[in-house]
């Protein structure tokens, strides 16, 4: 691999890693707060991408503007989904049953997308779709840069919400010790609902970013959920910084391996990392003690 190619792959990997990081943060949030394995996370991601595409088709405006609608919408849907679906599961079997429940939700979304917009592949065409900028001989597509910036800003916002707000402290308390959280007066059911909404809002942002640069079709979400699940296990279930670090590392690794191995084989790096993690450090590499309780 030449130096230029390496640099190019590295930059692409970092840009992709940013998007993975945002999406994995949402996924690990559901697990941390509610012990829910949210298979439908990436289906909502693709739904948001479709909504961005449709918004652009109809209005001719930039698909990024669809965020104004999809982020609040997904937040509300997430809150409702937690309060009216997930919270109905029995606590004792919540984690396993949540796999089935959210699997069904994913299939429903996929089916609806196919029903409404058919299985045809869709792609947003923008004036800046083909443009790229050159930095030190590395060419970076503007759309990838926008997607990365969106992911980075959202992750930063998520960090501030969790660290600096009263709601964030309540959410972290609920994650770390649900019983003690109730005993200091936190309404843990409400916090769980809002946490779910927050997770789904990250899917809305990720989907919009995705729509700028990817050809989308209803079953695309299956390509995303596997790597994302692997990332949150490697990072340590429930740990948002862990998810972000693992996402960045694995995103870069996958991007670098694409050159010698090709796209398909490069994807296996996520699963290899998953196997290695489960074998030598099942609680994850960057996570807290949360995962050790399982």
């Amino acid at each position, binding site marked *: 691999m030449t130096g230029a190619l390496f640099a190019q792959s590295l930059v692409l990997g970092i840009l992709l890693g940013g998007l993975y990081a945002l999406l994995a943060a949402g996924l690990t949030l559901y697990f941390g707060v509610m012990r829910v394995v949210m298979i439908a996370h990436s289906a909502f991601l693709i739904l948001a991408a479709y909504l961005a595409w449709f918004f652009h088709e109809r209005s001719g405006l930039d698909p990024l503007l669809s965020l104004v609608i999809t982020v609040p919408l997904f937040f509300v849907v997430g809150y409702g989904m937690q309060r009216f679906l997930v919270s109905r599961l029995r606590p004792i079997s919540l984690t396993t049953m949540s796999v089935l429940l959210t699997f069904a939700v994913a299939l429903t979304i996929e089916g609806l997308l196919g029903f409404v917009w058919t299985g045809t592949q869709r792609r947003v065409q923008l004036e800046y779709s083909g443009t790229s900028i050159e930095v030190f001989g590395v060419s970076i597509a503007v759309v990838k840069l926008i997607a990365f910036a969106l992911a980075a800003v959202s992750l930063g916002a998520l960090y501030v919400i969790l660290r600096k707000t009263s709601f964030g402290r309540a959410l*972290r*308390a609920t994650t*770390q*010790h649900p*019983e*003690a959280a*109730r*005993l*200091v*007066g936190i309404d843990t059911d409400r916090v769980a609902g809002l946490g779910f909404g927050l997770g789904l809002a990250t899917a809305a942002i990720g989907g919009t970013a995705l729509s700028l640069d990817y050809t989308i079709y209803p079953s695309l979400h299956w390509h995303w959920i596997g790597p994302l699940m692997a990332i949150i296990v490697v990072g340590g279930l429930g740990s948002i910084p862990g998810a972000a670090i693992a996402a960045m590392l694995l995103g870069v690794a996958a991007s670098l391996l694409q050159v010698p191995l090709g796209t398909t084989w490069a994807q296996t790096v996520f699963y290899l990392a998953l196997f290695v993690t489960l074998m030598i450090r099942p609680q994850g590499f960057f996570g807290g003690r949360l995962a050790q309780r399982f």
Partner: protein
Amino acid sequence: MASEPEPVPAAAPASSPAAEPLLRLTDVQAGYGRAALVLRGLSVTVAPSSVVCLVGPNGAGKSTVLKVASGMLKPRSGQVVVDGVDVTGRTPQQLLASGLSHVPQGHSVFPEMTVAENVLLGAYSVRDRSLVAERTEFVTSLFPLVGERWGALAGALSGGQQKQVEFARSLMVRPKVVLLDEPSMGLDPKATAIVFEQVQRMRDAGTAVLLVEQNARRALEAADVGCVLDLGRVHITGPAPDLLADPRLAQLYLGGRPKEVP
């Protein structure tokens, strides 16, 4: 949520004999799911500025009493009265507002938060910032260690130190009664001694304590009133020193449980 009026901070007269109890559980029946009842007509009272200790064998229902009192478990029947107000069936949040604070069994700090965050979360339901500052000062003067380790991660502290953080957190609402579930569990003798010394300090600061302990002898030494639980009822109750001297207690704990034979 409005800030509730501050209870009298200094020690109220410790022995006004006819004082209305701060907490009264009357004829409580409670259990989990469809399983058999754990509490079968239990009654207990906690007077102002006193330490009441529940002792008894495993499965006697000691922790369940606290869960009913703090609203974590709804009783099937019976009554919970706090300071003259019937609070039966209220949620933990509502009971916190009426002056009950519960420190659960085992480690209950938020391990990946700092001591400061833990203590301030104790005042989650208190909106008045100056009140929070005032109480922070109060709990750090009561538990100096909490102030010393203010910025440390709570999960990195020793078991005994974590207990102090939990105590400090529970006092941030200035409760009338604190419910302590086996505070000495898993602690070495030195840490246990500190914990019991602090239970007395809470009492001296005007907070009544309802304490559950496995370590009966040690707990009764720290308590004013003792209640011996067995099979979901209070069997014996009386001044703690009397219980310590009571041969029946020794029989129950040291000589097996002959009463159980039908």
